Structure formats: C-alpha cells, structure tokens
C-alpha cells in the first residue's frame, strides 16, 4: 500500500532555483527535526548553471533573513550590490541620433504609495513640474545620483530606501548550497538522473541516478531548468509559448570589467531599448554584467553582437560574448501528481523587470505554506498552485508587454510589430482602454498575489508618456491641496536623503570590509 504521508522530498537540479527552493522548504518545513520533511537535492556534475538572472526583488531580503543568512557575508560571497530599481533608456520614443531619454521604475515609493493616495491624477493635471518618476518618489532621485539606499550604521536587511540586490547567480547558487547543506539539513547528491520511475497512478516513485543508485521520495521538485526532466519529459506536460506576445528569443551576455577600482557602480539596472530588443547593464561589485536580449526574427546574430558591442563601447574589445537561447513561455501545468516545477522548468518570461528569482521565492513559499503532508491533500494543493501561478505568469506577461506596446518607437519592424493589437493580450488591452480616460487605481489590481501592482504600472505608463485624458472628470480630483503638500514633502525628503546617503560604491566598500550590525 502507498504511504499516506509525504515525508521525503527530492529536488532535481541545483542552480539558483533549486538551492533557493531547497533553503525555503528546509527552513519552513524544519528539515533539521527528525520528524520534519527530509530534503534531498540531486545536482548534475555535468550541466553548468545558466547563471544569468542577476537581479532580484526586495522580497529576497526577508527570504535570506528568514533562512538565517548574514547579509554582509552573503554580499561579499556573491559580489552583490544594492539594487534600487531600473532605469529604462530610450523606450519611450525613437531616440534622436546621439541623444537619449529615460525614466525610472524604483522599488519604493517611500512617501507616496499610490495605494493610499494616488498622486497620478494630480500629476496628470500638471501639479508638479517634474517627470512622474521624479515627482512621486525620492528613490528615483537617489538612484540617479548613484547614492546607496542605506548607511553603514543601518542594521542588516534594514533600509532607508527600499532595495534588493544585483548578484552573481553562479556564486549565489554555491553560497546557498553551502548554507543548505551545512545549516539547514539538506542532503546533497551529485549525480545525473537517468531514469524517472512512475507508479501506476502516474505519480513519480523514484529517480535512478548514474552513480548514486536509486533515490526514493514521496514528492518531487523539478528545478532542472528548461530541460524539465520530471514535469516536461517524464510527465509530458506541454509548454505554452508566448512568442506571439513577446518576441525576444535570444540573449548575448558579456562580462565587462570596471575601468578603474573606484569607478561608480550604478544602484539600478540600466535597461536600454535598441532596434530589436534591449540591453541589461548590471553593476556587480567586481564587474558589470551586460547583455542584449533580442528577437532573432528581427535581427541576425552578427547584427545583435554589433549592437551589444556598440553599447558597451571601446571596452568591449576582446571580451567574449556568450549566446543563450531563450524559450519564452510556461508549462500548461506547474504541478502534476506529486511533482511541481520551480524556476525555468516552470516558466520563463524574459529578464526585463527581473521577476525570475522572485517567482522562485513565491513558488517555494507557497509550496511550503500549503505543503501536503498527507498524500490525500495533494490534489487540492496542486489545483490551488496551478491556478495561482497561471494567473501570476499571465499577469507578468501583461506587465512586460506593457513596456513594448505603448512605446512610440517605430524605427524598426521589431517596434512596429510590438504595437500590433494582435500581439497584445485582451486583459492588457482592456486596461489600456480604461486608462485612456481614468488613471489606474488599486481596484484594477484586485488579485491578492499580483506580481506587479499599481505603483509599478504607474511608473511605466507615465514614464513612457502614456496619455490619460482626465478632462471629462476633472471635478473628481479636488484634493489638490493635499497633493501639493505631498509633492513638497517628497522634495524635502529628497534633499535630506541626498545630504545623508553615501555613494553606492562607498557603502559597498564599507560593507565588504566591516559589515552591517544586526541591530
């Protein structure tokens, strides 16, 4: 008879997704306790970690803190830096030769959270002379000046301005691996899975490895990346492509050294639009990670490499370019029988807005919170998981598409194709129609687990120059006094922060040398 409880979990695949999921599960399910769920992670010695996802969301701070990681140690080991958001360069319209324009999508809206009091309509009515991102937050201004989000005297994980990290994903996976195996009771098996054994019901019963024999478990987590050897190959769950919405299918990545040891380090991701895609530019402690995400239907590989090298400039000479194919989309199901996919085995959108690691955290947290310790609960937990993640991925796709479909760029077929109505999901079109005459409000985002909420939409919409015509309902926005006061408060706080906060590099040197206090 089949066992009635789920006591052993096998995770297939290391990398950021595997080790981060292992850490969250081991902590929340208390694997150190003999009665807790026992975790085993099987990692192939032959398959290198993809290691591109170098951006995170602020949720990573509470995740790291809860699994017992020291912030300063983590930063030093992973070349990590502070990320305060993203700057979108040349997305709004075709740039004039030699000039550029940009807007920020900061991680916090410190003073102003549009959820409580929406400044957007007042900004639309001309109450602030500044662009939307600068008018409504201090962080865009701090970040633009290259200042850090906190001071060396701020406790670890504490923030003056909200932040996440840029990190070296390969080092991060190694760091988590040590933490999981040394402190959280995760067992590690270095081997290749060569066969997946299934019971009559279709559920997975064990994994056969090449060098370490058979591994039995009651539940399986597929973190094997795009190969998806459990959910995709063994359980035959199909892949839902989204290349009719988001066209990017290839990335070229490059590591660029700093020109001098004291060169400034950007405290935000710089995402620059080009003729057939966009470049990321991420400042780690010891180097920049730069790459071009583009559509191979709209650009040849040679042309793409030329765009990337042109962006990096003379420094790119002699630097190697790594080509990474991207298969954008998601599984038709994320959880089937006793197997769930987390990471690129489940879905991959594209690195714009850096949601990949965030969605790994979200998936591992939900799996742990709703963990079916009784086998009889598998179906319910699986249905819930599938429903919420289908929604979260669809919502992510909408938000990513927003960056492209309201652009005024028409300088290439890529940009002309991106505004074609047939490429825009109905759920997004419906909202855009509404927002032509009404500013977005919290009521447009009514799902508890929306990955991108009101403030994010406002930064992108009004950073991109989206036009909302309020003339028919001007009378409804009668809190002008309060809005003016808020704009003034943001100005005042910005001044104070500018005087108080150190430069990003300055703080990093101190963190690497002294570390933060825990209190």
């Amino acid at each position: 008879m089949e066992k009635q409880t789920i006591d052993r979990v096998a995770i297939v695949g290391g990398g950021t997704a595997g080790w981060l999921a292992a850490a969250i599960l081991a902590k929340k399910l208390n694997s150190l306790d003999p009665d807790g769920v026992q975790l085993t992670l099987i990692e192939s010695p032959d398959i290198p970690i993809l290691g591109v996802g170098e951006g995170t969301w602020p949720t990573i701070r509470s995740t790291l803190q809860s699994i017992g990681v020291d912030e300063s140690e983590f930063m030093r080991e992973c070349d990590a830096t502070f990320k305060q958001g993203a700057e979108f360069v040349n997305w709004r319209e075709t740039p004039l030769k030699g000039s550029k324009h940009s807007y920020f999508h900061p991680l916090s809206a410190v003073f102003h959270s549009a959820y409580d009091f929406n400044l957007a309509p007042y900004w639309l009515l001309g109450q602030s002379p500044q662009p939307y991102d600068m008018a409504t937050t201090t962080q865009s201004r701090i970040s633009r000046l290259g200042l850090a989000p906190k001071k060396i005297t701020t406790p670890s994980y504490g923030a003056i301005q909200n932040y996440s990290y840029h990190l070296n994903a390969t080092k991060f996976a190694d760091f988590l691996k040590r933490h999981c195996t040394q402190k959280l009771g995760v067992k590690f098996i270095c081997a290749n899975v060569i066969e997946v054994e299934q019971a009559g019901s279709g559920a997975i019963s064990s994994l056969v490895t090449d060098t370490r024999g058979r591994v039995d478990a009651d539940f399986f987590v597929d973190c094997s990346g795009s190969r998806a050897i459990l959910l995709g190959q063994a359980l035959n769950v199909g892949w839902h492509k989204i290349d009719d919405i988001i066209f990017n299918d290839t990335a070229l990545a490059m590591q660029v050294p700093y020109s001098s040891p004291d060169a400034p380090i950007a405290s935000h991701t710089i995402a620059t639009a080009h003729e057939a895609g966009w470049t990321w530019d991420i400042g780690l402690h010891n180097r920049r990670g730069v790459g071009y995400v583009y559509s191979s239907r709209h650009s040849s590989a040679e042309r793409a490499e030329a765009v990337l090298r042109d962006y990096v400039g003379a420094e790119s000479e002699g630097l190697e370019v790594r080509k990474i194919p991207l298969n954008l989309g998601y599984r038709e199901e994320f959880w089937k029988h006793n197997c769930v996919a987390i990471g690129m085995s489940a879905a991959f959108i594209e690195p714009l807005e850096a949601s990949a690691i965030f969605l790994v955290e979200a998936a591992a947290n939900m799996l742990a919170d709703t963990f079916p310790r009784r086998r009889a609960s598998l179906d319910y937990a699986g249905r819930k998981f599938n429903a919420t993640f289908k929604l979260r991925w669809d919502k992510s796709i909408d938000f990513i598409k927003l960056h492209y479909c309201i652009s005024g760029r028409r300088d290439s077929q890529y940009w002309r194709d991106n505004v074609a109505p047939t490429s825009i999901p109905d759920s997004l079109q419906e909202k855009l129609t509404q927002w032509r005459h009404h500013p977005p409000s919290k009521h447009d985002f009514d799902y508890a687990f929306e990955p991108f909420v009101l403030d994010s939409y406002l930064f992108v919409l009004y950073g991109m120059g989206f036009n909302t015509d309020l003339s028919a309902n001007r009378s409804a926005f009668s809190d002008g006094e309060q809005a003016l006061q808020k704009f003034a408060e943001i100005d005042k706080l910005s001044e104070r922060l500018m005087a108080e906060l150190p430069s990003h590099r300055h703080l990093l040197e101190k963190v690497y040398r002294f570390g933060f206090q825990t209190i």
Partner: protein
Amino acid sequence: MSTLVALDSQKHQSLKLTTDKSFAHAKTRHLLPVAVHEFAMAATHLPIVFVKDGDTGQFRACALTGLKPEQNLFWKDGGWLGAYVPESLRHYPLVALKVSEGGDSFAICIDEASPLVGRETGEALFDGANASEFLNRRSEAAVAWAQKNLITQSFIQRLIELKLLQSQSLSIRLNSGAPYELTGCYVIDEAALNRLDDQAFIGLKHGGYLAPIYAALLSLNQVQSLVRLAQ
C-alpha cells in the same frame, strides 16, 4: 579636523607636547570612548551607552557627555567639571594604531593639528634621534589603552551575539525648549539579560563581563545629571 600621522623620529624630532589638564579638545564632543575597565568608575558620573561609529558601523562604548551633538556639558568655563575623567582624554593627541589588521604591533600616531603640539613649549618627544623618556611613557600608556579598547570590542561582540543590546532613544525634556529624542544610542537590554539561560549567564561571569554589564545599566541614571547640567 584631526590629522593623524605616524610619529617619525626624523620629521618630528623637534616637536614638543604640552599637557592640558582642562582637556579643551573635548569641549565640543558629546560622546567620549570608554573602555570596559573603567565602566565601574565612570558609571557613577556619566551615562555609558553604545553607539555605532558613523564611518565603520561598528559599535563603540561611550560616555555620554552632552544631550545633543557638539555639546559637552562636562566642559565649562575653561575646565573639566566631572569628578571622573575618561581615560581616552588623557592620551590625546597620541593614539596607538595597529600596524596591520591581524597583527600585534602598534604604531604611535599623533594629531599634528592639535594645539598641544608645538616647537616652543612642552616636553620634547625626542632626545636626538631617540624617543624621550616622556614619549616612551606616553607611548606605553597609549598602547595599553589600545589594548583595553580591543578587550572592550570583544565585550561588545559578546553582547551582540547574546542579543543583549537594544536601540534606545532618550527622551530629553528640559525646562526650556521643546522635548526631543536623542537617537542612535543602544543600551543593555535588562529583560534579555534576565532571560539568558544559565549556561550563557555563567559564561558572562567567567568572562568578567557581569560587573561592566551592571555598571552600564546603572550608569543610565546619570542621564538625569546631564539634564541638570543642561538646565
């Protein structure tokens, strides 16, 4: 602005040092470092708090001598008022700094910009190319002080590990002016101390940490002395 440089028998050969019993260099300092060895003596005169160094973020033990930055209530009318003089004041303008982060040897440094340093008056630092007896005495004291500071750092590290420090803003209410909060101070968390398991508590006893812990706790009563001085 302090300009610390290592003492050099060539460059500094003709320098002399005046002794200033009024400790005028401390007149605008509201925090003075104290070593764990002097907690018991300082505690009956000055509040002892823990503050983060703005440059390194590391904790230091300090006597609070003012109720706002740049205010030293213990320095008045050209002299030091208190019955207790923190040891750190007596070494100025000499400081012993570790030559390398992990090593044992110290270099003696001097604040060249100090008004106590001159060529006319005071005691000579060098006798020809050799350190004078005066300098030897002062150097030894400065090194001993630096070593006490290292012990104080271990003490603070232990407090942090045992989660015995907590942030505490001091509410200042003077007769004149609006009440305000003095922030950035950390103190020993008495409740957490009382909750310690026996083994950890005995560990503190063996480390010789109990007396300074209780001294620091009792010293907080001296905030009232500061308020009286400020009125």
